[in-house]
C-alpha cells in the first residue's frame, strides 16, 4: 500500500510494538502528528512542556521497562532541546530512538526558519544517527535505528526526517519478527544480537581459551571481589552474577548504575564503590587479589586515582563493548560478550570455593552513618524504603542522588533511575514520568530531588498532573546547590560562590498552582505520614523536606585520591 513518510513512521513504530511515545509538536513534524492522530488508538502520546523532558521521559521509560523509548520533536530548537537528553541516554547506555522533523530538503543549508543540523550536532552523543533523504529509505532506516538502539551495548539513535520526506509517498510493506532485523547486524561487531544456534557455537569456540583462563584466575584467587555494573542489568545477568558470587564465595561491590542487580539485603553486597562509596566497598577493592568486573566502564568517579586502584588485584573484565577493555584500567584478562552469556559459560567452569576469612574481613566493615541531626536524609530514605521497599526511585543529580545511592536499599534491578555518567540536573521529573508511563499497573514512582535540580524541570508538573502519573516528588530542600557547596566547604575555603538558593519558589504554593497536593515537612513523623498517604493515593504530589544547609554526603574521597583515602567519614 502507498503511504506517506509520516504514515510509514507511525506504522514502523507499531511494527516495533511501541505503545507510548513522548514528544512536543511543531512546524516540521506536523505531518507526523497528523498521522499519529489517525493512529491514536495504537500509540499513546505524552505531551510534555519541554522537549528535554520528553527525551528524559523516553529514557526513563526505557530504563524502567527494558524496552526502547521513543521521543519525537520538531526541527531547530525542538531538536536542540533534545541534546542533553540524548547525551544523558548515551552516557548510561539507554536505548532510545529520537525522531526529529527537519525543514524540507529544498531549504536545507539556507539557514531557513527553525533549521538546525541536528544529525551533525548529535554525532558525538548517539550510537548512530540518520538524516533520511528519501521516503523509500525511511522504513529500513527506522528498523535499523531500533535495532541499533537495543542491540549490543544499547544507546540512543536519532532519525532526522525532513518535512518533504514526511509528505512524499511510497509503497510500504509491513514486517514483523526476524524480518525486522536489518542486514547490518551480521556485519557489525557492536550491534550483535545475543548469539544463538550456530552463532552461539562459534562464540563458544572463540571464547573458550579465555573462559578457561578466567576459571584458572578464579581458582587461584584468595580474595576475589565482584564489581557489578549497569551492563549486568542491561543484559539481565543478575541471577548469574549472584550465582558466581556464591560459587566463588566473593563479596560484591556495585557502580551507581549497577545498584539493584544484587539486592542490598544480601550480606555479600558491600554497596556502591567510589567517591561516595561505602568504606566496605572501597576498602575491599583496595585489598582484593582478583577483581571480576562485569558490565562496568571504570568511571573516574568509581576509580579515584586510577594508578592506585585495586593495587594488588588481577583484573578480569567482562563487557560487551570491546572499547571499554583497557580504556581506563589495564586488565589481566578480558572476555568480550553479553554479560549473561559469559557468566553462564564461566559458571560451568568454576568450582566451589570458600574464602571465609576474606568474606569476614570484607563484610565486617559495614558501618552506620547515622548522624545526630534530627531530620536528615538517611532517615527520610529509610522511611521511604520501609513504607514502599520495591518502589521505583528516580533521582536528579547532586547530594540527594548520592544519599539515595548510599542509603536506599535497592532490592531489584531497574528500581533506580538516575543520570550516572552525564550527571544531568533536571533529569529526574522527566525520567520519573517516563517510568510511571511504562507501568501499566500505575504503581507510584518516587522522585528524590533537590531544590536546585527541581527548579530545572518543575515545568513538567503540568504533565504529571494532566496524565495523573503517580509521581511522588520528594524535594530535599536545603536552600543550596548542596553538592557544589560541599566542595566549596571542603576545597574552596567556605567561599559559597553562587550556590545559595535563598529564593523561591514556594514549592507548596507551586504544587497548588499546578493542581497537585503539596506538603512541607520538617520532621520525620510528618514525612512518614505524608509519604504513606501519597503511596496510598497513587496521585502526583510534592513533599518538601526542609533540611540543614550544611548536611554533607559522607563518606567521601577527594577527586584524584585513592579510593580508600577518605576525606569525610
Amino acid at each position, binding site marked *: 500500500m502507498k503511504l506517506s513518510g509520516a504514515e510509514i513512521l507511525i506504522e514502523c513504530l507499531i511494527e516495533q510494538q511501541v505503545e507510548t511515545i513522548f514528544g512536543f509538536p511543531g512546524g516540521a513534524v506536523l505531518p507526523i502528528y497528523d498521522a499519529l492522530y489517525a493512529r491514536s488508538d495504537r500509540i499513546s502520546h505524552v505531551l510534555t512542556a519541554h522537549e528535554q523532558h520528553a527525551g528524559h521521559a523516553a529514557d526513563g521509560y526505557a530504563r524502567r521497562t527494558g524496552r526502547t523509548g521513543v521521543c519525537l520533536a520538531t526541527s531547530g530548537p525542538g531538536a536542540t532541546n533534545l541534546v542533553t537528553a540524548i547525551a544523558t541516554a548515551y552516557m548510561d547506555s539507554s536505548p532510545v530512538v529520537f525522531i526529529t522533523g527537519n525543514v524540507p530538503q529544498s531549504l536545507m543549508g539556507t539557514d531557513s526558519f527553525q533549521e538546525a543540523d541536528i544529525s551533525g550536532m548529535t554525532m*558525538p552523543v548517539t*550510537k*548512530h544517527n540518520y*538524516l533520511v533523504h528519501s521516503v523509500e529509505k525511511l522504513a529500513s532506516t527506522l528498523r535499523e535505528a531500533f535495532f541499533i538502539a537495543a542491540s549490543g551495548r544499547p544507546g540512543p539513535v536519532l532519525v532526522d526526517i525532513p518535512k518533504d520526506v514526511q509528505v512524499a509517498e511510497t509503497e510500504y510493506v509491513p514486517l514483523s519478527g526476524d524480518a525486522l532485523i536489518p542486514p547490518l547486524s551480521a*556485519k557489525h*561487531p557492536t550491534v550483535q544480537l545475543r548469539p544463538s544456534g550456530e552463532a552461539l557455537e562459534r562464540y563458544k569456540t572463540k571464547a573458550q581459551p579465555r573462559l578457561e583462563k578466567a576459571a584458572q584466575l578464579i581458582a587461584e584467587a584468595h580474595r576475589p571481589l565482584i564489581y557489578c555494573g549497569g551492563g549486568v542489568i542491561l543484559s539481565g545477568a543478575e541471577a548469574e552474577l549472584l550465582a558466581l558470587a556464591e560459587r566463588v564465595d566473593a563479596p560484591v561491590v556495585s557502580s551507581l548504575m549497577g545498584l539493584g542487580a544484587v539486592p542490598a539485603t544480601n550480606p555479600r553486597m558491600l554497596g556502591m564503590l567510589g567517591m561516595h562509596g561505602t568504606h566496605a566497598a572501597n576498602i575491599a577493592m583496595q585489598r582484593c587479589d582478583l577483581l571480576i568486573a562485569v558490565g562496568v566502564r571504570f568511571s573516574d568517579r568509581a576509580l579515584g586515582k586510577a594508578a592506585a586502584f585495586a593495587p594488588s588485584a588481577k583484573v578480569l573484565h567482562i563487557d560487551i563493548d570491546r572499547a571499554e577493555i*583497557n580504556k581506563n584500567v589495564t586488565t589481566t584478562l578480558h572476555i568480550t560478550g553479553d554479560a549473561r552469556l559469559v557468566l553462564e559459560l564461566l559458571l560451568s567452569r568454576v568450582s566451589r570455593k570458600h574464602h571465609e576469612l576474606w568474606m569476614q574481613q570484607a563484610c565486617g566493615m559495614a558501618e552506620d552513618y547515622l548522624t545526630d541531626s534530627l531530620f536528615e536524609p538517611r532517615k527520610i530514605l529509610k522511611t521511604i524504603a520501609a513504607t514502599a521497599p520495591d518502589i521505583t526511585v528516580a533521582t536528579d543529580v547532586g547530594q540527594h542522588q548520592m544519599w539515595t545511592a548510599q542509603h536506599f536499599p535497592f532490592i531489584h534491578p531497574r528500581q533506580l533511575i538516575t543520570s550516572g555518567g552525564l550527571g544531568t540536573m533536571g533529569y529526574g521529573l522527566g525520567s520519573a514520568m517516563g517510568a510511571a508511563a511504562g507501568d501499566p499497573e500505575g504503581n507510584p514512582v518516587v522522585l528524590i530531588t533537590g531544590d536546585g535540580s527541581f527548579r530545572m524541570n518543575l515545568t513538567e508538573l503540568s504533565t504529571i498532573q494532566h496524565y495523573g502519573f503517580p509521581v511522588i516528588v520528594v524535594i530535599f530542600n536545603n536552600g543550596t546547590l548542596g553538592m557544589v557547596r560541599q566542595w566549596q566547604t571542603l576545597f574552596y575555603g567556605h567561599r559559597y560562590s553562587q550556590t545559595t538558593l535563598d529564593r523561591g519558589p514556594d514549592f507548596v504554593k507551586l504544587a497548588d498552582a499546578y493542581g497537585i497536593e503539596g506538603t512541607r515537612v520538617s520532621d520525620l513523623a510528618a514525612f512518614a505520614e505524608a509519604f504513606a498517604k501519597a503511596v496510598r493515593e497513587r496521585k502526583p504530589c510534592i513533599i518538601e523536606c526542609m533540611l540543614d544547609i550544611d548536611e554533607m554526603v559522607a563518606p567521601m574521597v577527594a577527586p584524584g585520591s585513592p579510593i580508600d583515602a577518605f576525606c569525610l567519614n
Partner: protein
Amino acid sequence: MTDTAALRHYTVGVLVANEPGVLSRVSGLFSRRGFNIESLAVGPTQDRTISRITLVVNGDEAHIEQLVQQLYKLISVQKVQVFSRETAVERQLVMVKVAADAQQREGIMRLADVFRAKVLDVSRSTMILQITGDADKVTALLELLSDYGILEMVQTGAVALERGETFMSSDLFD
C-alpha cells in the same frame, strides 16, 4: 598512561560506508577522544559503496588499541587495520614551490633527480616540484630545498596498502 618514549606514528586503514557525513563521524571521534591525527586521506574504492580512509596517528600502543576499538563502534566503519612499516607500502604526495632563479635551477633539478621528484612548473623565479614517497623521503628533500627557500607547499595525507596477497575487505565479521 602515556610514556612519551613509546609514542610513534601508526598508519591505519579504515573502510567506511560511502555516505554523507562519514568523514565527520571519523574525524569527530578523533578530536573528542583526544587522538592526535598527523594526516588523513580519503577516497572511493573499487566498490563505490565503500570509501577508504588512511590515517597517520601519533600515539602509544594503548592509544592505538583504543582508537581501533572506538572506530569499530561507528556503524559506518566496516574494517580497521593498523599497518606496519615492514608489511605495507606507504606513499604521500607533496607539491613544493621553491624560489629558483636561473642559476639555482640546475641544482634544484639535480636534487629532484636524486629524489625522483618531478618538475611540474618553471617560472623566472620559481619552480614547482612534485615528490611522492614515504614520510622520510619527503622530509629529506624538503630539508634540502629549504636552503633555496620554500615559498609554498601542499601535501596529501599518506595512503598505504599491505604488500602481497592479503588485502582489507569488509567481510571481517562473517
